[in-house]
């Protein structure tokens, strides 16, 4: 059993009078690709934000790499945990290269002295894998939605964080780019723990080591991908009867 990269105990997030998360527990082992699935409004995005320390929970705690929030300083936590929001956008119309350079400066501080050693050579393997080489000098706003998603993904991962929390990074990509991005995450999971919110259950089936099933602010099921996707609770939570097929030896879910 590999050590835990991420643990959450009894997370509770209340907004207004509604508890978005209520007793959310999860334990994510290191170096796995974990898909977080669940119906709309289940609390996936809020859970991811709490796991990224972007949203302070009203109760409960999160541990990263076995250490409590109190044991992390701001910068080392920033270096260890990278968060990619669902709708990533830059108010400033920066170029792709500038965005990736900012991503490389993650957790290094953004002051006068920090800027002096911030010039980092671009990660060629990453930009090639994401087909960004030709786009490096383009402004972010001039890119298509799919290109923007790939640039944002490069920004979030260029610094090699220990943990990547990505909220539907594949949502605006075409099928080919979806598969390529998932394959890239699969490869990243060699030395990064990846938690990715997915809506496409078949992407989860094909690429994820484990699945976290979120419903009504709780982690309802968590475990190996096949086990969770075979479970009939899935049908109940999504209010859908799934036909479980085997396509080329892989599990495929088709709504009936």
């Amino acid at each position, binding site marked *: 059993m590999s050590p835990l990269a991420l643990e959450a105990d009894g997370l509770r997030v209340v907004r207004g009078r509604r508890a978005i998360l209520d007793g959310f527990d999860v334990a994510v082992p290191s170096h796995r690709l974990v898909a977080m699935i669940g119906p709309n409004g289940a609390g996936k995005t809020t859970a991811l934000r709490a796991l990224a320390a972007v949203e302070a929970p009203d109760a409960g705690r999160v541990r990263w790499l076995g250490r409590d929030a109190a044991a992390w300083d701001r910068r080392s936590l920033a270096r260890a945990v990278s968060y990619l*929001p669902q709708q990533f956008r830059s*108010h400033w*119309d920066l170029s792709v290269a500038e965005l990736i350079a900012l991503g490389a400066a993650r957790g290094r501080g953004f002051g006068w002295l920090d*800027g002096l050693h911030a010039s980092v050579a671009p990660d060629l393997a990453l930009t090639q894998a994401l087909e960004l080489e030709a786009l490096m000098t383009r402004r972010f706003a001039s890119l298509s939605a799919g290109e923007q998603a790939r640039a944002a993904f490069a920004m979030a991962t260029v610094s090699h964080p220990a943990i990547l929390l990505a909220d539907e990074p594949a949502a605006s990509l075409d099928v080919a780019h979806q598969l390529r991005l998932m394959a890239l995450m699969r490869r990243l999971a060699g030395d990064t723990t990846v938690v990715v919110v997915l809506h496409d259950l078949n992407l989860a089936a094909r690429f994820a080591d484990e699945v976290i099933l979120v419903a009504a602010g709780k982690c309802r099921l968590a475990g190996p991908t096949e086990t969770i996707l075979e479970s009939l609770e899935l049908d109940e939570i999504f209010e859908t009867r799934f036909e479980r097929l085997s396509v080329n030896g892989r599990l495929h879910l088709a709504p009936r």
Partner: protein
Amino acid sequence: MTAAKLAAAFVVCALGAIWLGADIPSPGALLHAVTHPQEPFSVLLLSWRAPRVLAAFCVGACLGLAGAVFQGVFRNPLAEPYLLGSAGGAAVGATIAILLPLPLAQAVALPLFAFAGAWGATILVVLTARLAGVGEASGLLLAGIGVAAVLAALRSLLLLALSDETVSLQVVLSWTLGGIQTPFWDELAVLAGLTAAGLVLCLGLASGLDVLGLGDAVAANMGLPVERFLRRAVLLAAAVTAVAVCWGGLVAFVGLVVPHVMRWRFGAAHRQLLPASAFAGGCLLMLLDGAARALLPPAEIPLGLITALLGGPFFLLLLAREARR
């Protein structure tokens, strides 16, 4: 842009601004004046116009810089020292420093009070906008208008209640309309030093402002202490605004227009945007101040009037663009 091009642009604008005035010398006369430094006209150009032109550069640089930082902090294209109330606050501070008998030398009291006023007014605007909870862009703008109105009234009230000698009344009035003070060389050195210090300190905000543009959540996740950074940036921008107001009075819209044009030209990354805005703001204000002297001789048009005439329509254009978005 290379250093040579920058230097050339600076020299051209500075010479043009020295050339502009109540009497515009022919090129021959200008050459004659430069080569004969004892003549009265030469003294006018070198001891009066030259320091004033350089002071205009510093004031414009501070306004461009403060505008770029404010727009960055609030991620709001309409943020500007004048519209945010910082300039108005600085003017109230300066008015108090001039009119009230203080146990401080005025050379010290004036910048200090201007800074306190600028910072206080900006914080007030930000807090009001947050309390009101209106959508960010319009909330700030509305709060700015409200605070600016109160500050202007306060300034007039102070003026009426406290001024007994016409001299200080005139000084304060010229402030309100905006106009570059003609400094002595040692005063100019202080102004230039403060401007340079402001630029250096603001450059330290550059990549933080870039990161802030990715949204508070991503900025925090990347290790930027968002609240602390915002407080520091507002404090710095208010200080830079106070420097501009001390020597140039209330000059509207330069801080709004210049960063926008520079963003179109050089891109949005603040490491280039901040120095470019400072430089272009300086060059622009040298020329506008020259125009203020030259347009209606022998009278001098208040500088704030010229910048408002040119900048106001630009502001409306931006507002229309924002509304369409």
